[in-house]
């Protein structure tokens, strides 16, 4: 192919000529390129994702213990769910977790990202330090640490004793408060949405702030008129994905409760119960049914989020 000319006027014509030399019209060619870029995703989708997903959908109508072939039992798994007190416990605990941890985590992440975006000295260090908790992720060490911190003689109670509040017992080990320690754990690991917010903030062109400053805007109105609107795609992303992640949260509950979901099922996250049923008791069919119920719940909430996004998310690529 020959090198393209840079002269503006001629380019269009040259391009059109070249295109006409090829057999495909521009529209189809663009579509093809679109699908070309999607090719790896399609491959992955059809071999690694759709197949197993449909497999698990099938399993949800069966009784399957991994050790022998699945047996079709129709809707029995779905019916059994609603008289299973542990399933209802799991729904309740997960709902509390999602409703409380997602806004908290996002708020903290956004606040810290805004603070760090001010071009402070030591930005890199702060950013790294605030990300460290997320690095600990699902390590076994976290379980031990969290029990130490929120335990009867842990640092939290010691701190409260300094404020004059004595005689408290372990926060982790009390069914009334254990889920809240997990919510705090989630909020503590805000590093990921924070980084994403930071990246989003960095993408807002500095010139916009300068122009606004010349027009007499103060920092607060800069935030409201520039930062917030331009950040909405990222806020939306974080909201949706943190919500999906919170519904599917597994590791914090698994490691802090040593896989039991206790005490008294107070930390029995939904996916933890799926894991217990599927890999603990080998009721893979029942576990698959629960997984699909979760998917439908998540899909519902996500659809609501997307519908609402039309009213508050502002994309720059809109013509």
């Amino acid at each position, binding site marked *: 192919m020959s090198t393209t000319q840079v002269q503006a006027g001629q380019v269009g014509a040259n391009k059109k000529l070249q295109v006409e030399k090829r057999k495909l019209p521009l529209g189809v060619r663009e579509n093809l390129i679109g699908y070309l870029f999607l090719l790896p995703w399609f491959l992955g989708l059809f071999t690694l994702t759709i197949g197993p997903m449909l497999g698990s959908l099938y399993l949800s109508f069966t009784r399957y213990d991994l050790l022998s072939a699945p047996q079709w039992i129709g809707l029995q798994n779905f019916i059994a769910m609603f008289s299973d007190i542990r399933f209802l416990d799991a729904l309740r605990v997960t709902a509390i977790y999602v409703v409380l941890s997602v806004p908290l985590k996002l708020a903290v992440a956004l606040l810290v990202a805004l603070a760090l975006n001010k071009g402070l000295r030591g930005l890199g260090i702060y950013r790294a330090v605030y990300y460290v908790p997320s690095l600990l992720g699902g390590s076994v060490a976290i379980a031990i640490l969290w029990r130490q911190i929120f335990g*009867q003689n842990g640092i939290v109670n010691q701190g409260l004793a300094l404020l004059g509040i004595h005689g408290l017992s372990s926060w982790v080990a009390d069914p009334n408060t254990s889920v809240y320690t997990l919510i705090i754990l989630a909020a503590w690991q805000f590093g990921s949405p924070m980084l994403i917010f930071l990246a989003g903030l960095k993408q807002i062109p500095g010139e916009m702030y300068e122009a606004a400053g010349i027009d007499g805007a103060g920092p607060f109105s800069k935030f409201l008129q520039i930062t917030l609107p331009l950040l909405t795609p990222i806020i939306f992303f974080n909201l949706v994905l943190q919500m999906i992640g919170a519904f599917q949260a597994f590791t914090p509950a698994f490691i802090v409760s040593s896989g*039991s979901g206790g005490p008294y099922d107070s930390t029995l996250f939904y996916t933890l119960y799926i894991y217990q049923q599927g890999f603990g*008791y*080998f*009721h893979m069919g029942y576990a698959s049914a629960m997984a699909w119920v979760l998917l439908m719940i998540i899909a519902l909430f996500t659809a609501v989020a997307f519908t609402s996004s039309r009213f508050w998310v502002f994309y720059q690529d809109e013509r």
Partner: protein
Amino acid sequence: MDSTLGRRDFLKISAGALAGIGTLGVAGCGNEPAARNGKKALQFTFWGSTTRATRTDKAVQLYQQLYPHTTIGTQFTDFNSYWPKLATQISGGSAPDLIQMDMRFIDQYQKKALLLDLSRFIPQPISLPDFNQVLLKGSEAEGVVYGIPFGGNFLGILYDKNLLQKAGVEMPEQARDWTWDGFAEYTLHISKALGPGVYGTEDASANIWAIETFIRQRGKELYTSEGQRAFNRQDAFDWFAYWDKLRKSGACATPAVESESSSTIPALSTLAQRKAAINFSPSNLIQATQAATPHNVGLFLCPSTTGLSDNGTYLKASMLMSASATTQYPDEVAKFITFLFTNNGAIKALGIERGIPGSARAQALLKPSLKLSDTIQLNLVHLITATSRPKLVLDPPGAGEVSDLLTMIAQGLSFGKLTAAEAADTFVAQTDQALERVGV
């Protein structure tokens, strides 16, 4: 600038990436020995810590020296990860040849015809003349041996000698009244004597083995041989009401203390933390518990309903050596199992890490390495073998779920969320549901 340059760069990167995946993928090829030129390759999977892994590798090396035409690859992980992984391997058709088994799962696996029938290899080549017959019989399923026990243990009580002395009570062996009622008074006395924060006993209401012992003392088992519930609501109620009483009187540890401790990790038990003088524990944990506390730890039998005549205790295989029914080398497998249990080198390599061996000869061989706590264990094992009613009903597949249900409900009771009556009703109803979920 040529647009083809952009595309070429892109293609170069893709090619490089593909080559990269290839190397990375191949670099990660595990050394699973494949059968080549007459060599036999077996896979041996087990759970345990690094200590066990080192010992097992030593035994495997010995075997390979003796029989160079066989290679045995080992795979291990921790107990909780072991079962999901094994089940996934089986579902994918790649069951390892040699499988370490646990009594709670053996019924499920043998019912699906996944375990090799070892009975036909006994007594040749697996010769076990001096093996503890009660132990062996207790691990059979429908009269067939599917696994050779590595050792036996039982549910007993571990007690803190120092704390008991401090409280001014006699040792459990000398106690006049070792019934549940007597136990309640005994532990109450200890709690009062030792002051706040230290209790006579832990709260064992969530311990499935303890409630099983309790129910066995009534002549029943937890489950029928058809895998149904064999205890009734009254049994459950009596159990929950008993521990409720102990909790309210202060004889057993509070829920706060219980939640801070672990019932599975000896170093974190209430006994090792010196918060309780007595723990209900599998007997083989005595060594690990002793190592975690400077006080002296003793081992004895659980309290019983009538006194010691039928105390419901039974000898259970701590873990077993089983084999896959689909192994390509059943004879080789049998040979290896024989080696593990009868070869002096293997016996010494494994030591008592998996349990005190069931064979008298092996016990004698390891005697010099036995500590005091092991000898106490051994003596009690002999006592139980001689006097107790063996348990001949295997745990059905739903047993794991029932155990978790008990824990959850007992916790609810201890935190005051349920009354004893509600706890009993819920436990019975949910147990039935759990057993029903399994079906055939």
